[in-house]
């Protein structure tokens, strides 16, 4: 497995984990403003909530792009040869 593949594999997994955590945080901020419609929660939901949610989606997009790049023919062949398995960046835990 090449260094690039290893990095991509780690990045994809880490980015998706980060995206999930950030998105959960953003959803929590948004839902909090529904229950407590006071100035600070409402402003936090509409600013920080949207920004964190946007960052989460950007992480997801980056992970998908990295995953797609890691699955290019050259990498796939190399990966399949070195590991003896079908090329894939994300593995079962």
């Amino acid at each position, binding site marked *: 497995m090449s260094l690039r593949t290893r990095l991509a594999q780690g990045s994809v997994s880490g980015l*998706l984990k980060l995206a*999930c955590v950030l998105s959960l945080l953003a959803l929590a901020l948004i839902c909090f403003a*529904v229950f407590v419609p006071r100035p600070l929660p409402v402003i936090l939901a509409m600013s920080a909530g949207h920004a964190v949610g946007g960052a*989460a989606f950007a992480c997801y997009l980056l992970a998908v792009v990295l995953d797609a790049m890691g699955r290019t023919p050259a990498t796939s062949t190399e990966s399949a040869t070195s590991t003896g398995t079908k090329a894939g960046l994300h593995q079962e835990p």
Partner: protein
Amino acid sequence: MEHANWLGFVILGSSAVAAAILVWYLIKRPRLDLRVKLLLLLGLGIFPALAAASSTVSSMEATTHAEFCGSCHVMDSHFQSAIDPKDQSLAAKHSRNPFFGERSCYVCHADYGMYGYALTKAGGLRHVYEYYLGGYRQMPLEKALKVIHLRKPYDNLNCRQCHTTTLHDWRRVPDHDALEAELDANRVSCASAGCHGYAHPFTKPKAPAENAQ
């Protein structure tokens, strides 16, 4: 308020679905195939976007409610006066009108120009800044009533959204006729002592005669 309620359900429902997908992914950590990618697109993109859009509409709606304005302690007297059924101030009388209702602060204080909505919201952000960072939060109510004032004179155009000043009854009042130019130029306020009275009289210093009582 009704549509704010169903928007609340949309926000909570879409957030719950998104959260379920995300928690499932974090626990199971499945292989990243096309099915999982699409599922994550729902959990990280579609449902959160739906929740965010709904929360924006719902939050903007919430900011127009008098309770929202009254949630800062420096506005408590204004809010209590507006909702008091026995209060005879201009603000209270208008708040009892169903057209103003729960949104009486916003209806009277919103800017009605072309960019009125955005300008009103920008002004609201300044209020939040003043409250949390400008010292109003620590300010006792008694002091706040003396210190906090409108940044610019209340615009008579806001009154004229409803009171068009074109009816014969309005023109028959001698003071209206005499002060028309001043009212148009906003040099004299409809809500001044000699006219229709202050909207929030408790914020004004009492006259010497009243103080003596």
